[in-house]
C-alpha cells in the first residue's frame, strides 16, 4: 500500500535498468503529458457557464480528445493498469465514500434522457457529476466498458428534446438535491464530517506537483472554476501543459502508481 501524499520521485537514475533509460524517461514524460492533457480536458468539460449554454462544438472536440487519449491508453495497457491500481490500492471505505459522493447508482441504468433533466443548475452539476462518475466507473471496469464515456456535457443539450419525458421529471426532481449536494461535497471537502473523506484529502502533499525540470514550456495560470478541492490539491504543472490535475485524489494515486510501474 502506498502511503498517501508521499512525494513521488521521478525516476531515480539508479533504479532504472540499464537497457533503455532514455526511452523510459521519454515514455514517462509522454505519459505524464498525456495524463495532464486528460485531466485538463476533463476539467474543461466539467466547468460550464451557469448562465449560458456551453459551446457544443467545443465540448464535442474536447470529448473526442479525451476519447482519443483513453483509447490510446487502453491500447498500451495503461488504462487497465490504472483501473487495477485503483481497485487494489484503495481501501474499501475510501472507495465507498468516493462512490457515494461522485457516482450515480449505476451507469447502466441511465438512458440518454435520464441524467439530463430540465433544471439548468442541475444540468451543469450533472455534467461534473456524471463525467467524474464515468471516470470512476471506467476505471473500475475492464477497458471494454471505457469507451462509452463522457458527453454528459453534450447531453445537457438534449433537454429540450425531452419535453415529452414528463415521467422522468418526477424521478429527477428527487435526484437534484442529491446530486447538487454531491457536487458541493466535492467542492467543500472540509465541510464534510466524513472522516474517510478527510483522511483522503488531508495528507495530500502539494509539493509533489511542483514543476519537474525535465518538462519545458510555458506555464500559465489555468482558468479555474469554483472548485475548492482542485485548489487544495494545487497545481500539477508541467510547464508546457499547465493544468490543475487531480479531478479526484484517486487519479493522483494512480499517477503515482503509474510512475512506479512505468519507471521500473
Amino acid at each position, binding site marked *: 500500500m502506498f502511503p498517501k501524499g508521499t512525494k513521488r520521485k521521478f525516476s531515480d537514475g539508479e533504479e532504472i535498468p540499464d537497457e533503455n533509460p532514455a526511452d523510459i524517461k521519454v515514455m514517462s514524460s509522454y505519459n505524464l*503529458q*498525456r495524463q495532464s*492533457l486528460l485531466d*485538463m480536458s476533463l476539467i*474543461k468539460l466539467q466547468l460550464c457557464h451557469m*448562465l*449560458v*449554454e456551453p*459551446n*457544443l*462544438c*467545443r465540448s*464535442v*472536440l474536447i*470529448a*473526442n*480528445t479525451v*476519447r*482519443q*487519449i483513453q483509447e490510446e491508453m487502453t491500447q498500451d495497457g495503461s488504462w487497465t493498469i490504472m483501473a487495477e491500481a485503483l481497485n487494489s490500492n484503495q481501501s474499501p471505505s475510501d472507495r465507498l465514500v468516493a462512490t457515494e459522493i461522485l457516482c450515480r447508482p449505476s451507469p447502466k441504468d441511465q438512458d*440518454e434522457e435520464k441524467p439530463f433533466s*430540465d*433544471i*439548468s*443548475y442541475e*444540468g451543469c452539476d450533472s455534467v461534473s457529476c456524471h463525467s467524474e462518475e464515468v471516470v470512476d466507473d471506467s476505471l473500475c471496469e475492464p477497458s471494454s466498458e471505457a469507451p*462509452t464515456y*463522457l*458527453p454528459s456535457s*453534450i*447531453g445537457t*443539450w*438534449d*433537454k*429540450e*428534446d425531452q*419535453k415529452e419525458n414528463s415521467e422522468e421529471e418526477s424521478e429527477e426532481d428527487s435526484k437534484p438535491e442529491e446530486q447538487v449536494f454531491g457536487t458541493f461535497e466535492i467542492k467543500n471537502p472540509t465541510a464534510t464530517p466524513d472522516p474517510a473523506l478527510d483522511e483522503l484529502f488531508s495528507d495530500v502533499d502539494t509539493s509533489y506537483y511542483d514543476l519537474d525540470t525535465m518538462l519545458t*514550456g*510555458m506555464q*500559465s495560470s*489555468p*482558468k479555474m472554476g469554483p472548485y475548492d478541492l482542485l485548489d487544495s490539491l494545487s497545481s500539477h504543472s508541467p510547464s*508546457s*501543459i*499547465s*493544468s490543475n490535475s487531480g479531478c479526484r485524489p484517486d487519479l493522483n494515486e494512480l499517477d503515482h502508481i503509474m510512475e512506479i510501474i512505468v519507471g521500473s
Partner: protein
Amino acid sequence: MGEDIDTRKINHSFLRDHNYVTEADIISTVEFNQTGELLATGDKGGRVVIFQREPESKNEPHCQGEYNVYSTFQSHEPEFDYLKSLEIEEKINKIRWLPQHNAAHFLLSTNDKTIKLWKVSERDKRPEGYNLKDEEGRLKGLSTVTSLQVPVLMPVDLMVEVSPRRIFANAHTYHVNSISVNSDCETYMSADDLRINLWHLGITDRSFNIVDIKPANMEELTEVITAAEFHPDHCNLFVYSSSKGTLRLCDMRASALCDQHSKLFEEPEDPSNRSFFSEIISSISDVKFSHSGRYLLTRDYLTANVWDLNMENKPIETYQVHDYLRSKLCSLYENDCIFDKFECAWNGTDSVIMTGAYNNFFRMFDRNTKRDVTLEASRESSKPRAVLKPRRVCTGGKRRKDDISVDSLDFTKKILHTAWHPAENIIAIAATNNLYIFQDKVNSEMH
C-alpha cells in the same frame, strides 16, 4: 501591395472609449452588401451598425469612397429561456444582405436562436400642402377649405428607418452559426450545430429541416456542423463544414432531407503530423464559395484551403496562416484559443484570399503570384493615409528589426471577422471592438 488607410474617421465614430473595451462593443460579424455600398457590423451587445460609402466627389479626391455611419439599431435583445434556465445571448452571429430589388435594403441578422429580417429605408422627402390637414397634422375644418392644392414633396434631412419585417424564431435547439441567402432570393438557410433549416423569406411560422446530423443517442455525438453556405448560382446546391474537417456538398433535388451528401471533401490526415490536437485543428471554422462558384475556401485553425468542387480528395491549394503555432498547441488548448473560429474571405475576382490571425494580424494570399503578406490592424501601427507595413513573425533563427517573436504575440487580440468589398480592393477588419477599413488606392481595380 500598398494600402492607404482612412481609418481615423471610422474609428472615432465607432469607438466608444478606447481606454477599455466593453464586452458589448466587441464586433462579432462584418458583411458588405452586394454592391459594396453598405457595410454592416454586428456586435456582442446585439447592435447592428451600417456604414455607407460616400459617393466620390471631384472636389475632394482624398475623401472619395469613405465609409460613414448610416444607421444603428438594436437587432437582438438578451433573452432568458425559462425552460432551461439559461440566457440566450444577444450577440449577432451573422449578418447577410439580401440582393436589392427596390429602394430599400434588406438584411438578415441572427443570434444563437432567432433570425430577423430588417428593412432599411431612407426617407428624405416629406409631403406638404395637404388639403385636409394643417401643417401640424390636425384636421382642418371643411368649411375653411376654399381651394384645392396638390401636395408637393419637400426635401427634408435624410432619415434612415430600420424596421423588423420578419422574425424567424423557435426553429433551433442548438446555436445558429450560419445563415445564407439562396440565389433564388426567396429562400435562405440557417444552420446550427446539428441541423440546417430552409426558410422562405416570407414565412416565419415554419421551416424545413434539410440536414440533421443529431445522433439518436447524444452520447454518440462526435461531429457538429460549423458553417454552411448556398452556392452563389445554383439554388439547389449548398455546402456545410464539420468539426472533423469535412465538407459536404448537398443537392436539394436529391431528397428532402439532405443527410446523404452529393460530394464529400476531406483531406486524408497526415500521419506524420498526428497529435492529440489533430482533430481540433482540423475543425473547419468557416467556408465560403468563390464568386465564380467553382471553388471553396475553408479555414481551419492553422491553414486556409482552396478546394475545387470537382476534386474531393484534397484541396488544390493550402496556405499556412500561422504554422508557428503548431508547437504551441497545448498551451493554446489550455487557454481555449485553439477553439477560436477564424473567418476567411475571397476578393471580388477570386484571386486573393484573406483571413485573420492573432496579435491583430491578418493575412492575404495571392493565389496567382503565390505571394502573401501579413498586416496589422491597430491604431498604434497605422496613421491615416499611411501605407500599412508588412509584418513578420519570427520563429527563432534570424530576427530582423520589427519582427515579432512568437512568444510575444498577444492572443487576446484576434481578428476573427474580415470582409472584402465585392468589386474593389477595400477590406473591413474587425479587431475586437474596432473596425478598420483599408483601401488600396494604388490598385483600386482588381486583377
